[in-house]
């Protein structure tokens, strides 16, 4: 080995950087987000009526796109009624439609958003819902 000391130091830095996620994966490493659907508004509904504007799978994947489109349609195009794929009509409003059922922002939105470091800018303009238990 020539200049062994320096090369070994370099390799140690390399291995150290690579090992960071393994060593410091964090205390929440095994935590799993569990968005809660037990708001009073949802519980009031009969079991069969507990449906979002679109299917659960669709909402899970596409809710951000949907909300973005709603914003554009309402704010820019002046449209206010959304017709879902099942033909049902909803008022396009984050605060009055979405948050009416999902009034638990911290236990519903933030649960997954925090887990994946997503910081939507909804609440830059909208007023956060007041939650009783924090």
């Amino acid at each position: 080995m020539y200049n062994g000391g320096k090369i070994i130091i370099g390799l140690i830095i390399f291995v150290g950087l690579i090992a960071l996620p393994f060593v410091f994966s964090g205390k929440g490493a095994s935590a799993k987000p569990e968005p809660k659907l037990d708001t009073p508004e949802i519980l009031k509904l009969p079991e069969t009526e507990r449906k979002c504007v679109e299917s659960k799978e669709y909402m899970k994947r596409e809710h951000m796109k949907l909300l973005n489109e709603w914003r554009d349609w309402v704010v820019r195009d002046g449209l206010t009624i959304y017709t879902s794929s099942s033909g049902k009509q909803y008022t396009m409003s984050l605060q009055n439609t979405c948050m009416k059922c999902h009034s638990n922002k911290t236990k519903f939105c933030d649960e997954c958003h925090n887990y994946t470091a997503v910081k939507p800018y909804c609440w830059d303009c909208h007023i956060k819902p007041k939650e009783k238990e924090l």
Partner: protein
Amino acid sequence: MGIIFSFFAVIALIVIVFIGVQGANLHYLFGVVIPYAAFFIFLLGVIYRVLQWGRIPVPFRIPTTAGQQKSHPWIKTNPIDNPFTATGVFIRMAFEVLLFRSLFRNTKAELRDGPILSYGSTKWLWLGGLAFHYTFLIILTRHLRFFFEPIPGVIKIIESLDGFFQVGAPVLYLTDLIFIAAVTFLFLRRVVIPQVRYISLAQDYFPLFLIFSIGLTGVLMRYFLKTDVVGIKELTMGLVTFKPVVPKDINIIFYIHLFLVSTLFIYFPMSKLMHMAGVFLSPTRNLANNNRAEMHVNPWNYPVKVHTYEEYENDFRDKMKAAGLPVEKE
């Protein structure tokens, strides 16, 4: 030839995932086993290559410099481009590693109006390379959000800066755009410039295609096809805590992305991508130019058997005297 081979090699990799995950349901193999294998091949491979390089002696300082060497006190020296001290070397290395200074000096030669050969400065490779490497670094750092819980603030800051313009949802990352553009440029450069195309081989095209498809699958996954991000993080957190889990319902696009990344990790130590470590070991960059000031002994010098004049005279003194030749000792 190389270009076609590389293209179909990457296509084949994608087809393998389709067959393996979609067809044979080998989620555990593609989600856990191959990523682990790739990671350890990468880690051990890089260490092995660096240690192999470390065993090669550099007997002499190789001063390929662009500045005046340190000599007499009245001659102005260039302490960074032609460093004499370790500090100078450190600064030159920092310029090289962080700003790609050698590429900045890139020139092009072209024949103009008949037999007039002209040289010019060309910064496109430097710019493209810089854009490519730095966006790659930012993208890699951003991905660390999948490997820490809670997520360190630095990663969140990088992410929010990257999505600064808040275009669409999920927010468009600037680095994604620049990255794809830079890889495309680096590829087109190889194809369009005849001299570069002439010296380009499969090993040049393959990493470009591979990295491009990694970028493309990532972009598709984030902006278009979408998949269960929470599930992905459960998988990655399982990997770093050595308690692997494979959540259901993760779209095939994620497995393609992951497999291509794994391929890159496996390919890394055995390819030109090792310049990541190699740049630190460039003898023309990391050695101070002190050839004239210091003695550098060639490490493979063996003891040479010498026969001095004194010994010679001792051997033949009588004969020299008899022949009337002058001797130093009587």
